[in-house]
């Protein structure tokens, strides 16, 4: 007890550290099996795992099967497992991922991909008109909805013409996996999720740009399937809206050339995948990268400070691009 009186903090921190380390080891393969550790940072004290897990809502008493609250249908494969070439993860996990992928494609998107191939559209359905992108004016956006992550948040903050006309349901770190179920839209009495918001009001156009935050999660196919589900849901709730799938904006060369995940190769692969979801009838794919390109397929570094986001003064390029690429039916 004298020890506790002389150095209470030392004893407190010391014992807690030992207990947490023991917990970390004890639940390494059960509750914490999906918590990444030692993949990016080569070596870390075991204790870090407990805190990483806690921030993901995983505790020692969390059972393995319990789905994460943000996911309605299937589990997102944890980041580490998705990247090929990292032999660190358990053997079982890649199989799981593949199974899930198979499930999804079997369920829903197979049908879609069967008749949404770009050349199919015109041939298959004679009554379907093919539309072309034309110039529109700002009033085009009065019944538009923008869904996106921090980049779209920036568009709302620094493009007055759009912000005053369109609706923005955008949030920092939003992903295609959680955009439907996450309660991020403020209402008079609390918050609601996108699905709910889409039942309350009908929009003429819906613009989506998502995909940079989840670039380390899953592969293109997995991403595309999740994207496809979101599109289906929006279609169901908003039958008359024109849906614009916006290609993910690039990062700069400086970022792309050093980052294992956030690079333009990954972005292009995903853009190619989601471009296939367009039917050119009421779902269109547009890619604003041409408006901010440095000539080599990267984000022009004079338009950004942090290599990922446009500077406030650069959002006008995105706006201009949208003005030149509208669909009028």
């Amino acid at each position, binding site marked *: 007890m004298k020890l506790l009186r*002389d*150095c209470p903090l030392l004893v407190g921190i010391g014992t807690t550290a030992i207990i947490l380390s023991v917990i970390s080891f004890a639940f390494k393969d059960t509750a914490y099996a999906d918590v990444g550790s030692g993949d990016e940072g080569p070596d870390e*004290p075991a204790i870090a*795992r407990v805190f*990483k897990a806690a921030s993901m809502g995983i505790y020692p008493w969390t059972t393995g099967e319990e789905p994460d609250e943000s996911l309605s249908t299937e589990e997102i494969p944890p980041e580490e497992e998705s990247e090929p070439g990292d032999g660190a993860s358990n053997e079982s996990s890649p199989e799981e991922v593949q199974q899930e992928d198979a499930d999804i494609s079997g369920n829903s998107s197979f049908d879609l991909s069967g008749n949404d191939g770009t050349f199919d559209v015109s041939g298959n359905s004679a009554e379907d008109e093919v539309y072309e992108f034309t110039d529109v004016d700002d009033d085009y956006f009065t019944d538009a909805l923008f869904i996106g992550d921090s980049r779209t948040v920036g568009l709302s903050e*620094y*493009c007055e013409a759009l912000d005053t006309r369109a609706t923005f349901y955008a949030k920092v770190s939003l992903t295609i996996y959680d955009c439907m179920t996450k309660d991020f839209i403020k209402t008079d009495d609390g918050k609601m999720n996108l699905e709910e918001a889409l039942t309350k009001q009908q929009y003429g156009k819906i613009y989506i740009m998502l995909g940079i935050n989840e670039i380390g999660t899953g592969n293109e196919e997995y991403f595309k399937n999740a994207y496809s589900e979101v599109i289906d849901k929006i279609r169901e709730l908003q039958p008359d809206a024109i849906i614009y799938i916006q290609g993910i904006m690039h990062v700069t060369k400086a970022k792309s050339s050093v980052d294992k995940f956030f690079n333009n190769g990954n972005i292009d692969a995903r853009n190619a995948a989601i471009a296939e979801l367009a039917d050119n009838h009421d779902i269109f794919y547009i890619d604003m990268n041409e408006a901010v390109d440095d000539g080599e397929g990267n984000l022009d570094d004079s338009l950004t400070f942090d290599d990922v986001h446009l*500077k406030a003064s650069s959002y006008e390029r995105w706006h201009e691009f949208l003005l030149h690429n509208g669909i009028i039916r």
Partner: protein
Amino acid sequence: MINFSDLNFIFRFLPVFVIAFYLTPSRFRTWTLLLGSLLFYAVGDLRMVPALAGAVIVNFLFARTQSGEKSRSMLIFIVLIDALMLVEFKILGQYVDSSLLPVGISFYIFKMISYQADVYRDRVKADAAFKDVAAYFCMFPQLVSGPIMRFEDYEKNKMLTDTEGKAGHASGRKKLRGILVALEDGLLYFVAGLAMKVLLADHLAMLWKEIGTIGYESISTPLAWLGAVTYSLELYFDFWGYSLMAAGVGIMLGFPFVLNFDHPYGSGSVSEFYRRWHVTLGSWFRDYIYIPMGGSRKGEGRTFLNLLVVWLVTGFWHGVNLNFILWGLVLFAIIVCEKYLVFRFLPRKIGRFIGHFNVLVLIPLTWVIFAISDRFMLAEYFARLFPFFGTGIAVNDADVIKKLSVYWSVLLPGLILLIPGVFKFWENHRRHVAFTIIWFFLFWACIFSLSNASGNPFMYFKF
């Protein structure tokens, strides 16, 4: 690991080292400290261990030559060698490759120069043992960014000497108690510093970065000022936090507390600010550059020149870049104005008011100069701070409200901690049970934050 706010340092190196240190019989503890420090350095910068070791040996040998009659030329020679080594590596690091700049070189070179000068002036004895001199130069709590402790303070460490055990007949129990008390006190300071660094500085850094993301040409004027405050606070808590962690580790090993930040924002003038900001560096400049050059004793013209030299050197030391030179010159200009105009001609009350104004308003503006290395961007930033010449591009006037609504929880504690009495109150009551409990939770809050920031880009970079 070379960073105190690194989980590997906190949970691996530090506890293992402390246990090893105290398990070593006190006669050999200096060796444990030296070897542990070299290991620490090798983990961070293996290639540059020879540079450190070479500098240690050369400086030890030169100091030994002063044990008989003091030779001024010998002192000048070794100080020049040290200074040249620093300049050379600084230039290599700046113009060739930043990895060529050895970690902590400024700080160990400063310690070496101070040691040589102190030996020459008989402030410390010239025949100190190699293990002591080497451990003093290399000790890991100060190796990376100071504080620049003096050798006389190093020698105050009772844990490193075996005299106490023999003479005092202190029982093993009593000794153990002394160690535990030192560990506890060091830990208290360490956690205080860790919280400043992790919970305040690192989060303020995110706000500063977000302001950059918007682009300086597009921030509202209130946000530009908030940015100046943010960056000033970030720098302060980053460095004060680091210094407290370093001091805390030092205390754990038996060294006296080294004061490096003495509530600078409570100062009544800019020159006082720099006596209380990074105290060990300031006093190093004073004792080993300013005073040897004559200080303020050789007339006003010479004082003026000496001040100019000190501030130019300070600017260059931060980097060979226009903004650092400008930063040094602006500070020089403010200090000269204070010294020769404000405090000389104005009534005392008004002078004091201006002095506080300079510290609280002009200092943050000088930090903006310090922060932005691109001169066009710097000009843009100042155009937004003082929007007399036209307006910005795509400015959203509500930006400051948005940032405040997110970051008030770090800005407010940061501002409160600027009041000198707040920290002093904690220092005086730091063993109180209420603070112990708060510190316990602060520590684990830091670890939570660190666990989720490190090695996990997806948690840290949210777009």
